[in-house]
């Protein structure tokens, strides 16, 4: 369960990137955060996986106030999450395989298992034939799929995705969303930031509308 209480975030005075955001995502929820560019979607996601701290407010994930977790112990929270970044954050000097395997290496998983699981994750995003390529040799859409494979490879309990289908054609975007839905059915909580209304309409369960850093409304379909 992810609970946000009165989250405020200010990068520069006097503007507030987020103003008094309070919401709750239950275990197994499939949520969308939507809104125009600059509405604070990415900031909100970054606060959830604690890349940045809010100026005010509290965040509780699985009954743990993550703002009180010391820096050197934050890894335990992040191991439960799979994150798809808007800018992918791939390592361009490493092959596709290594980019994904890194998540499993961190967990101390055996080498032969890593190979199998990386292959399966790549097959899910239909990129298993590019396992030994470098990300620079892939298209934007393919890089995005590598980022998605990295996020799901360790079957995390929480998936946070920032515009995960932004560079994909509608057909592939639909497939990727179905993949997230499948992982969600196994019990994972999924939070996706997007402004693709078609996808929201088709897959939406809980929808949060942000506008200029404020939570305008919540909808449950």
């Amino acid at each position, binding site marked *: 369960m992810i609970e946000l209480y009165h989250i405020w975030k200010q990068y520069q005075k006097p503007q507030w990137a987020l103003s008094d955001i309070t919401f709750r995502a239950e275990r197994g929820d499939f949520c969308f955060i939507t809104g125009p560019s600059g509405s604070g979607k990415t900031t909100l996601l970054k606060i959830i*996986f604690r*890349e940045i701290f809010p100026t005010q407010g509290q965040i509780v994930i699985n009954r743990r106030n993550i703002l009180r977790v010391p*820096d*050197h112990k*934050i*890894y*335990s929270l*992040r*191991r439960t*999450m799979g*994150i798809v970044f808007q800018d992918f*954050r791939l*390592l361009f000097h490493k092959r596709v395989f290594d980019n994904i395997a*890194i*998540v499993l290496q*961190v*967990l101390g998983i055996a080498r032969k298992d890593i190979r199998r699981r990386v292959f399966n994750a790549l097959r899910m995003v239909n990129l298993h034939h590019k396992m030994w390529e470098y990300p620079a040799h892939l298209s934007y859409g393919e890089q995005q799929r590598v980022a998605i494979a*990295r996020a799901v490879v360790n079957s995390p309990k929480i998936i946070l995705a920032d515009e995960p289908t932004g560079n994909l054609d509608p057909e592939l975007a639909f497939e990727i969303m179905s993949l997230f839905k499948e992982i969600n059915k196994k019990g994972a909580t999924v939070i996706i930031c997007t402004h693709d209304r078609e996808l929201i309409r088709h897959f939406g369960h809980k929808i949060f509308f942000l506008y200029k850093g404020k939570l305008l409304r919540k909808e449950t379909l």
Partner: protein
Amino acid sequence: MNNLWQYRVRNVFSVTIICLSFLIVGIFLSLSNNLQYTAQQISKNMVIVFFLKKDLSEKDRNTIGEKLKKSSEVIKTQFISSEQALGKFLEKFPELQGIVNNLKINPFPPSFETTLKEKILSSDETQSFIQSMQNMKGIDDVQFNKDWVERMQSLSRLAKAVGFFLGGILILASFFIISNVIKLSVFARKDEIGILRLVGATNTFIRIPFLLDGIIMGILGGMLSLFVLFLVIKLFPLYLGSSLGALNELINFRYLSLSQSISLIGAGAVIGFLGSFSSLAQFLKV
């Protein structure tokens, strides 16, 4: 190792600095070893010669001999008559036989050559022992090279201190250099570190490759300094030739002992470890 190779130019520079720092320590340590060795050699062969008056009666001579033999500071003592002393002199300097033959008298007084226990050479007991012997009837003079031993020992201490002082400053400098070299490679990989943090890597997991790089650079620097020191020790006497005569032996370099060599390499590893460790802290806060 991949990382070391990737930034090889920067790392070679770092290893060279470590090597030079430890080379300075090594050279002074080696010089100190040599002075220590020379002092030990002098101590081992340290003989106190008690010169006797020429007209000394046999009874008095025996009394002195007995006192020397009974003394707890003495290992052995030997009486050298005037004739034996002359014989020894001619044996050492045969070319001076003509001059000696021209002398009408034997100029060498009889003496007792006495070897003292090594460990008491520098103690006050030796001084008081010599003093008491000097006051005895029949003893004319005492020849004793204790000052040389003490000079060698203090020179050895000085060489060691200078080595540690200069080396210490350079080692401190090399610590900061390693720290900055590692910081550069950490900075070059800060995106990777950030991603590792975000996918749940522990600080230790991230640190280990960098720490290993630092340790390897430190060990390589230490080993390289030993190798260069070896070359210096081999080549320095060739460069000097025999121009310095007896002084050659004094400023000769003696190679470091096994424990000193291991300590030097170990110190390199420690410097490398600390340099890496200190440079990583600021990048592990994502």
